């Protein structure tokens, strides 16, 4: 079996060097606005995406610019919305389906897992499903067990889906535009805690290619691989570690499927120590796969320490703020685990 490569990326428009500061959710909105201006087949469908502006305000006032035909409010019918997305995508449209909380993909799962993901293969390549599903995941808002899950592993486990987890505002825009271009169903898992965070975002019709990891920080002592909200926590931890003389490389895979294994293995070889950080529950999480990929590769021979995973507890997310915090890796947990890894080995 070969590791997936990132060969067939549509050419991005020439990247302007210009950036502006915007929030993660503004960046997503910017991407959707750009895609809709360019291609009349692109439209948004979901609960309260219109006048309300989206449960997390991501579509905002797009309805006033673009109108209710392409910013389409739906009834509370996730399975129906998802199926309508699949059908529209099979017949020439490029729907962006918003699911208010990624937990509610459970309602829509038949259309995601049995339909969208399989249709292209099952039908012998006769049709494809160029659909984007946007859904916020993650904990930290006190919304408790049915509104706080990190379910990326569900989707990575379904061949036919691509899975993206932007950790910065610029990636939220660039990855979404790549997802919209892609001829396959792409699940974009956003993070609720990131919506209001700001960053420098490239202006215009830019791309972040699917299947290319980011390495926002390089250091010689260990490699921290983190996804979603844990990327910013890992970077914060890396600052603290640096003050203590430990230099960490931080890798953000950005795309979970297809995965940029090359960057992961290269950075692991360079440091010989690896800490894997995910918010999702530990058992059979995405980082279990990353751990297996490292173990099965020649990078294994470079390891000076056992691979270490930091993950959410194997529990539903509790409501109480202290309990919720204790359920998923925080900055101090990353600092402690990294220090342990470097000092012991």
């Amino acid at each position, binding site marked *: 079996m070969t590791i997936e490569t990132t060969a067939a990326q549509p050419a991005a428009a020439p990247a302007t060097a210009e950036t502006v500061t915007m929030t993660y959710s503004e960046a997503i909105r910017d991407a959707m606005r750009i895609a809709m201006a360019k291609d009349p087949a692109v439209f948004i469908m979901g*609960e309260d995406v219109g*006048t309300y502006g989206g449960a997390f305000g991501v579509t905002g006032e797009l309805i006033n610019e673009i109108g209710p035909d392409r910013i389409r409010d739906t*009834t*509370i019918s996730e399975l129906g919305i998802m199926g309508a997305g699949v059908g529209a995508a099979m017949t020439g449209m490029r729907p962006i389906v918003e699911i208010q909380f990624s937990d509610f993909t459970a309602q829509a799962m038949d259309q995601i897992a049995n339909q969208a993901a399989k249709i292209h293969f099952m039908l012998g390549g006769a049709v494809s499903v160029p659909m984007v599903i946007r859904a916020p995941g993650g904990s930290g808002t006190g919304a408790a067990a049915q509104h706080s899950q990190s379910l990326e592993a569900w989707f990575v486990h379904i061949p036919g889906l691509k899975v993206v987890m932007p950790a910065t505002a610029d990636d939220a825009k660039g990855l979404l535009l790549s997802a919209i271009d892609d001829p396959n169903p792409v699940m974009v898992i956003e993070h609720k805690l990131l919506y209001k965070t700001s960053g420098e975002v490239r202006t215009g019709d830019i791309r972040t290619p699917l299947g290319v990891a980011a390495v926002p920080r390089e250091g010689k002592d260990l490699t921290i691989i983190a996804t979603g909200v844990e990327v910013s926590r890992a970077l914060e931890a890396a600052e603290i570690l640096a003050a203590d003389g430990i230099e960490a490389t931080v890798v953000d895979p950005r795309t979970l499927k297809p995965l940029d294994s090359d960057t992961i293995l290269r950075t692991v070889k360079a440091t010989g120590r690896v800490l894997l950080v995910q918010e999702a529950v530990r058992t059979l999480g995405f980082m279990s796969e990353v751990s297996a990929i490292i173990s099965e590769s020649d990078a294994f021979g470079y390891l000076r320490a056992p691979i270490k995973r930091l993950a959410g507890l194997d529990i539903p997310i*509790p*409501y109480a703020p*202290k309990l919720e915090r204790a359920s998923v890796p925080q900055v101090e947990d990353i600092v402690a685990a990294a220090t342990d890894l470097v000092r012991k080995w």
Partner: protein
Amino acid sequence: MNTQIVADRELAAASLATMWKIRRFEEAVEDLYGRGLMHGTMHLSIGQEAVPTGACLALNKDDYITSTHRGHGHCIAKGADMERMMAELLAKETGYCRGRGGSMHIADTETGNLGANGIVAGGIPIATGAALSAKMRGTKQVAVSFHGDGAMGEGAWHEGVVLAAMWQLPVVFLCENNLYGMSMSSEKAFNLDQLSDRAKGYGIPGVTVDGNDVQAVYDATKEAVDRARAGGGPTFIEAKTYRWRGHSKSDKNLYRTRDEIDEWRGKDPIPHFEALALAAGGLTQADIDAVRDNVRTELRSAVQRANAAPDATADDLLSAVYAR
């Protein structure tokens, strides 16, 4: 002909107290939340108090309910303890869920409340299952599934009702049509004059009542519950009401007008009930004042005691996942 609630001193006082408890509890929640003393999210049912009050009056203590994200009213009307509810919202160990569930997951099995639900329509098939269980166990219990108008867009609603109709289960599907599911107007969402028109398609009786009138909700529920207990199968009830507050704290009320909100505030179920009770002679002004004062005192002490309770602890999170 059912009991006239407003003319019966005891029932009138109890119903009024239930409505005030719901109102005051939620005002307190709103206040604590606003002052940053409560976290998470919350969905208030202020303005809708007559629905759970009238419906639960028609139920026995061991009858079941399933509830929703907007569930404080159902919980209180079925008989829950406000202190333990408040403790839950304040993330205390003494809360109904030991601080693990919060507002959207309070259950009180002792009063037959199988739980609020963070998933729209999540409780509907569960009510069907509770009714199936009651029927199989031969207990004569009935289940009432409170749900919103928006829930009628979910597949789970359809499937739960289909099974209940096929097996003629003792369950009442009680839709609180507060005119919106978040920002989606139920009038726009469903091509129906009345949501109860849908019942016919499922082969079950359906009725629409004034959800701001305790008696109307009680009468409809009583009839449905009596039929269910006698083996006559499920009923759908639409109770028309209105949510005064936003859907949750993120709501800017862009999808409705101030006039509409004001119009419905004018139909406040509490003074409406008080006026009827005065006119019918069930309650005197002194009774009405006493009910209100007692609830205020009760709630104040519930908040105080809940506040003083120990915080939820993270000690045994891992061992709390599976039943033993």
